[in-house]
């Protein structure tokens, strides 16, 4: 494409010459306003002890004290942090394993596939609050469907207080999250599966690879970029889980479901300790950032090499088979 000589462009009207930057300015301003200003403001808050007098907010510089306090004097941060890590690891792993498995099934041709695919999306399409309220009632110790069903089937003799013991409550929140979030994995995994050329499987079959081997050697490497995106987004979303805890357990019992997002909210809006809450938010953001960086480093480079190798190898084999 030819570019106009500089002198000629200079003669164009100002707006025409700068139309590009002018058009992106509003969105840049919005992004700056809703993203960067809060980020830097939160950093400022995290370095200060904050108190209030009427309409005035008083900032007293505290250095890194808010960060240090999280690990030394804060009574709940460490337990909340560990519970969150466990929750993130379990939910992300479960959602991706179940999601990929389900997408493999839904990628096969069978009668009513479209209907089943549509049905699978329902939990994800449901608002999180509705999902949380629904599970809260399912696990209600007195009137819940879970107890009702198990009692009718004779599997239990007395009602279980599902949300009343730490482990059980954690499991219930975990289950509610997996139920809600797995369809998203299925959706993306199906999209990724549909891009894999059939001839790769044909070539693998000629090579004598069975279904399991084809999955490990073809399917998984080919959908790895999508899995990487899922891994990153799912991890970040799992760290952000708030609504489920707020509605189902309020962080209890015994702090067993007091995930960091919920705890940050408590420290900010109940204790009005905005400095500590901002410090916690930064710790949480840094963890998400670090994990995303690690995921990309570990999977992306290896992924690109794997994909190239597979394609090259299989095309060679396929060409050989056709010639033969």
């Amino acid at each position: 494409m030819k570019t106009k000589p500089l002198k000629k462009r200079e003669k164009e009207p100002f707006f025409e010459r700068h139309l590009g930057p002018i058009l992106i300015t509003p969105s840049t301003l919005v992004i700056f306003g809703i993203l960067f200003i809060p980020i830097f403001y939160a950093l400022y808050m995290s370095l200060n002890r904050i108190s209030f007098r009427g309409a005035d907010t008083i900032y007293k510089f505290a250095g890194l004290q808010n960060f240090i306090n999280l690990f030394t004097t804060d009574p709940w941060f460490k337990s909340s942090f560990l519970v969150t890590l466990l929750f993130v690891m379990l939910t992300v792993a479960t959602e991706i394993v179940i999601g990929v498995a389900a997408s493999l099934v839904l990628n096969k041709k069978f009668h009513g596939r479209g209907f089943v695919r549509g049905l699978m999306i329902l939990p994800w399409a449901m608002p999180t609050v509705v999902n949380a309220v629904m599970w809260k009632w399912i696990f209600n110790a007195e009137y819940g469907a879970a107890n009702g069903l198990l009692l009718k089937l004779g599997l239990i003799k007395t009602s279980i207080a599902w949300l009343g013991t730490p482990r059980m409550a954690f499991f219930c929140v975990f289950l509610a999250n997996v139920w809600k979030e797995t369809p998203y994995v299925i959706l993306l995994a199906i999209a990724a599966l549909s891009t894999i050329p059939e001839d790769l499987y044909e070539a693998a079959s000629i090579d004598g690879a069975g279904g399991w081997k084809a999955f490990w050697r073809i399917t998984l490497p080919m959908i790895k970029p999508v899995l990487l995106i899922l891994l990153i987004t799912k991890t970040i979303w799992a760290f952000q889980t708030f609504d489920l805890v707020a509605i189902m357990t309020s962080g209890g019992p015994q702090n067993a479901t007091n995930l960091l997002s919920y705890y940050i909210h408590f420290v900010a809006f109940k204790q009005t300790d905005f400095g500590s809450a901002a410090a916690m938010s930064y710790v949480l953001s840094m963890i998400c950032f670090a994990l995303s960086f690690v995921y990309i480093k570990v999977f992306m480079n290896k992924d690109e090499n794997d994909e190239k190798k597979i394609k090259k190898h299989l095309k060679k084999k396929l060409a050989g088979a056709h010639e033969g």
Partner: protein
Amino acid sequence: MKKKLTLIIALVMVLSIVLMSAGCGKSNNNSTSSSSSLKGQKITVILPQNEADTVGFRAAKTKEFEKETGIQVELIEKSWEGVSDDVTGDLASGGGTYDVIEFDNSWIAKFIKNQWVAPLDQYMTADMKSGMVPGLLDLFSSGGKHYGIVWNNDTRFYMYNSKMLADAGLSAPPKTWDEVAALSKKTGKNAYMDTYKQEQMGTNELMFCVYSFGGNFVDDQGNPIVSTDPGVKEAYTWLAQAYKDGVFGKATLTMDYEEVAQSFNNGDFPLMLQAWPGVYADSNDSTKSKIVGDVNVADYSVSKTGNEQVVLTLPEAMAITSTSKHKEAAWKYIEYMSSKSMDKERALQIGALPIWSSLYNDPELLKKYPYWEQFGKQAQNSKGYPKIVWVDSFSDIVAKESQKILSGSVTVDQGLNEMQKLMLDAQKAAAQQ
């Protein structure tokens, strides 16, 4: 043509930026409340929609207020938690959004210390000061100034299902905690359900239990005494054993107020130790209850020996934010909604307890609510949250650590020692702020 189009696009862009900046900035509307008429002014009111008003009484009366005064009201009603977050978030960031706010009894020390609410003395009439229930006015006062007018006289009372008790061979409800345990043992069922949830409502009910054993979490100066107060230890020892024995249901650790009331109205258990006034009306409403005609109000509340009579009082008030630009219009709204005639109407319609003393002797109200006589007896010693700045931490610590004690994860002594340590830390942290 092309130039013109480019110019138009550019102008639209500039205009949108200007409009956006205007939208993001704070309003500079300096309409003062000292103008001759309040008509046309707009105030924003944020209050919780809770169990006290299930028929939309407030919303209907707000519309009437708008018609009568010409003051526009944007009424925001949501859950208590939602209101709490919105109000705190707004006030902490400089305020200006709300004129009339929820002022919960547990927020008094914090809000006044932060100067988030305006004194109401200049607006209050002599009638109000002398005619409203003194305890309610005093609770929302500090340094000789009044900061809140109660809209929800949320005092709790001991109610029971007389049929269930008769079936268990009892002619009167248990008076002591041991009698409550004995009732459960006799029937082999839960004697009561409550909310000991990890939330403020859980702390409310645990406070009642401790108070009824003659205990206190903090002394008169607001210092924690959890590990040394004998009443606290006795209360938690009883609660831990009762949890094991099934005196109250295990779901108590997760249920909220609405669920407890619903369960009581289903006839699942006979005692509601600290029911709010509206429960009585609901339990006699056949569309909501399976125990119509079976509920009674006791003359006393449950306590350790029967002598430590106490009921929980958790009133909620309306207050004017110190940043409100329409303080007079805001006061007009508060005055209208808390007038004696409105108070009576509210009592007649939704069974809310009056905030005006004389209404407790009103023949019409006493005819409709004869059990208010028992309410009066129980309410002689009502107690609420301690007036401490670190009340949110206090509530959180009590709720979390109590669950560990109840479920047997830690012994009573271990739990109370930990509670004491955490409370001291919270007190110290609050002092540094």
